[in-house]
Every structure is written in structure tokens, then in C-alpha cells.
């Protein structure tokens, strides 16, 4: 049996991406730069947080809206909102 990458799995979903206003914002990127363990990169089920070189890169398009990142962030550096008016993930079969 074939392993589905996280990208393949996310591709199965329906979305309505808010390109103008991401619903998650890193309030203070400096905190992330100095964050040793970066639980968000491990605990986000959609792999929205990726370490690239010195920087933590956040892409919110494929967010599953679980809210885990905000809870595991040890520095309270994540501002998390419900996406605006109908935007975001659209669950149809779960």
C-alpha cells in the first residue's frame, strides 16, 4: 500500500482560501527564531509550520482549523482567529 504524503492528503479536501487576510498570524517572529523546540512544526496536523533555514514559515491555506498550534505554542506567539465569512476548510465527509 502506498503512503499518502501530507500534501496528497490535504489535496483531497475542499477549501475556500482567504487570500486577503490569513486567519493565523505570528505576532512576534523573533520569538519563533529563538524558540528551541518549535512544537508547531510537529503538532500541526496540516504541516502549516515549516522551518526554513533560520526562519519559521507559516502557510495558512491548508489549515484544518483545529487550533492546536495556538495551544502548544510555548511563547503565546500565535494569533489565531476563526476564518472570515465561510472561508477556510470545508468538511464534507467527516
Amino acid at each position, binding site marked *: *500500500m502506498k*503512503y*499518502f504524503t*501530507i500534501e*496528497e*492528503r*490535504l489535496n*483531497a*479536501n475542499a477549501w*475556500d482560501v482567504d487570500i486577503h487576510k490569513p486567519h493565523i498570524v505570528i505576532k512576534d517572529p523573533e520569538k519563533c527564531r529563538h524558540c528551541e*523546540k518549535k*512544537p508547531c*512544526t*510537529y*503538532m*500541526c*496536523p*496540516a*504541516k502549516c509550520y515549516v522551518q526554513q533555514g533560520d526562519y519559521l514559515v507559516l502557510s495558512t491555506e491548508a489549515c*484544518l*482549523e*483545529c*487550533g*492546536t498550534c*495556538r*495551544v*502548544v505554542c510555548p511563547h*503565546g506567539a500565535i494569533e*489565531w*482567529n*476563526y*476564518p*472570515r*465569512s*465561510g472561508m*477556510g*476548510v*470545508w*468538511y*464534507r*465527509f*467527516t
Partner: protein
Amino acid sequence: MKFDVAVVGGGPAGLAAAYKLASAGFRVVVLERGREPGSKAMYGGRVYTHWLDKYLPEFRKAAIDRWVTRELVTFLTEDKAVTLETTTERGSFVTPLVSFTSWLARLSRDAGAQIVTEITVDQLARDERGRFVGVKSGSDFLRADYVIDAEGVNRLLLERAGIVERLKPETVAVGVKEVLKFESRKLLEERFGLGEEEGLAWTFAGYPTEYLPGGGFLYTYRDSVAIGVVMYLKSWDKLKTPVYDLVEKLRLHPYVAPYVRGAMLLEYGARMTPVVGINMAPPKFHYDGLLIVGDAAGFLLHTGVLIRGVDFAVASGVLAAEAIRESGDPSAEALSIYEKKLKSSFIYPQLEKFRNVDRILGDETLFRDLPIFATGVVNRYFTIDDKHRTLFEALRETSKETNVSLFKLLIYMARAVRNI
């Protein structure tokens, strides 16, 4: 525009409240941020029906995929598995939450509730005396005599209102799940040995969470299965695999893979789930003009294998509706009837009874020692080599090999059986 009641969130709790209130003649609006009610709905896969029969007997007309008739619990390691199986009478059903939610939304609409979708509430609105008088979405203000907060586990609005603190990792787990579709209903039934309308609920301990608090699950829908992993947030730093790959590891495990071979991935989702029940409840469930229901109130009972969210959500919504109907005015004093109702219903007593369960379930030895030991012993007992072991010899040898003290495990089990 003014309503009697504004309900934030079109999930099971909010919609149950709206249905009952609208049926009683109240002008109710449900504000749902998704495209339709159910668009943001995610859960494991099952609904227990005992209390639904009392609080929302109409559910029997709902889209029920299958009734759970087979219940399995597996201790799973890399290469071993021990499964306990029992048959059950129709006490719970499995169905996509979106089906259940859409049905409940139709019911509420037919009763006269207004359901407005694609509206994200940003703030619970208060007057100068601190009373809740409606909700705000962007620059819009919607006035209502009563507000019901049914926003779910993240409860941002309650946090913004200063009622609760930010969720702590110790209080929640994250559930990650795949929905896999089979070629036909028949094929699924043959795979799992199920008759028409019969369903299977399967939980796994050990391997799925790398022997950390949490577990795996599999539920059979009509022609698809929900397979997933629930992982306590507090243990994250001991995890070696990122949480997004845990569910794939379970799906591809040699013990699980043959069941789901060939099934097509339909959807991938995640949500947080309360794991400390009443310990994450807000200080009060009623305020001036405000009632709190469902997950936002911590009304989810989690005892490891048994997880009940929907029956608690629906019942709390129904009780909130009754409280509003009987209150006369929206003062906190008048609404305290809601708390009385919670306490005389099953909700509060059952949550209270399992108040300490997270201390047992949060203990990492349970998730490591028990699966490793149980699979080891059973495997040894069934292995005939030079020796033919008694059960006691199998226990002793396994204890030696795995370094799990039998005595410690027994003490532990004695504690567990009283609490979970």
C-alpha cells in the same frame, strides 16, 4: 434586527438549542461561520443514543449510517496485537458528523429558526453594565436578549470576553483523521464481517501514539471508514513522528492495512478534543444574558476508550433552551436555572464522576507498559517452542523481557478499573 436568542455556532449543541427554542416560539438566529451547518464539523465518528432518546428522540429519523454492533479494543505494537472484541446492542451509531449536523439544521429551520451561514462572530457584545446583549461580527452588531455560546472547543469568544483563559496543552488532545471510501457498501461489509446497517467501532492503544497518552480509532460509515489518531498535546515533545504522519502509520500497519486496502482517501481532517472534561469548564455556565453549551463548556466525557461528545452537546443545548424558556428574563440570577438543570441531568453528575480520569489516562506508563506487556504475554502463551508455557510463565518471562513490573502494572490496573 433584533432576536430573542442568538446562537453562536451551528454544531450539535447550538442547533439542538435553536430547534427547541424555535419550536417554543422564540425568534432564534444561529450564526455559523462555515458555508453550511456541518462544514466545520469534525469528530471521531460515533454518537451514543441513550440520552438522545430522552432529549432529542427525533434523531432516529436522522441520517444514521450504521449501528455499532461490534466493539473492538486492540493493544498494538510494531509487530504484535491483542484484540478484545464484544458484540453490542444498538446503543450508538456511526455516521459522518456533517450528516447529523445537516439533519439537525433542517429540523431547526423547519421549526422556524433562522440559520445564517458564512458569518464569523468575533466578539460577544456587552452593554455598559457588562451584560451580554448580542454578538459582533466585524462592524456588524446583532442584538439579542439571550446569547448561547456553542462555538466549540477553541472558545475564542469566551477567552476574549475574559471568561476563560487560553487553553492549556494539558486540557486537550488533537484528533487527526482520514475518511477512506470503499468501492461499495458491500465490499466494506465483507471486509469487516458486517451485515446491512451493522457497524464496527475499533480503538487502538500503544503503537498509534508511539506509546504516549492517546490512541487510534476506526469507525465504519456506510461505504467509508474513519481512521484516526488522538494525541494528548501535553506529551508532544516525546513524539518522534510529526502528528500529521501518525494516522498514515496506523493505516499502513500490517495489522490494520488489510482492512482498508484499496480504499480511496476522501477527506483529511483535524480538531481538538477536551480530555479533562469538567476540569476545563468555565467558572460558570450562565452569565447575564449568556449561556454556554457543548465543547465550549467542557461537556465532553473522555475515558480513553469511550468518548462521548454529541450526546452531551445535544443535551446541554436542550437544557439551555429550557432554561431560557423558563427564565422570564436574561439576568444571571434567572438563568441560574440552567445550572440547576445541568446538575439534575446526567451531564454534570457523569462529568463529575470521571473528574479524575485524566490523571490515569495522562499517565504515560499506561500507554507504554500495558500494550507492550499484554501483547507480549499473549504472544508467548500461544508460542510453542522447546517450552510449553503456563500462563504464569508467560507473564514472568514477558515481565523480565520488557522490564515491566507485574506488581506495578497490577497496582496500576486496580487504580484504572476504578476510574475509567
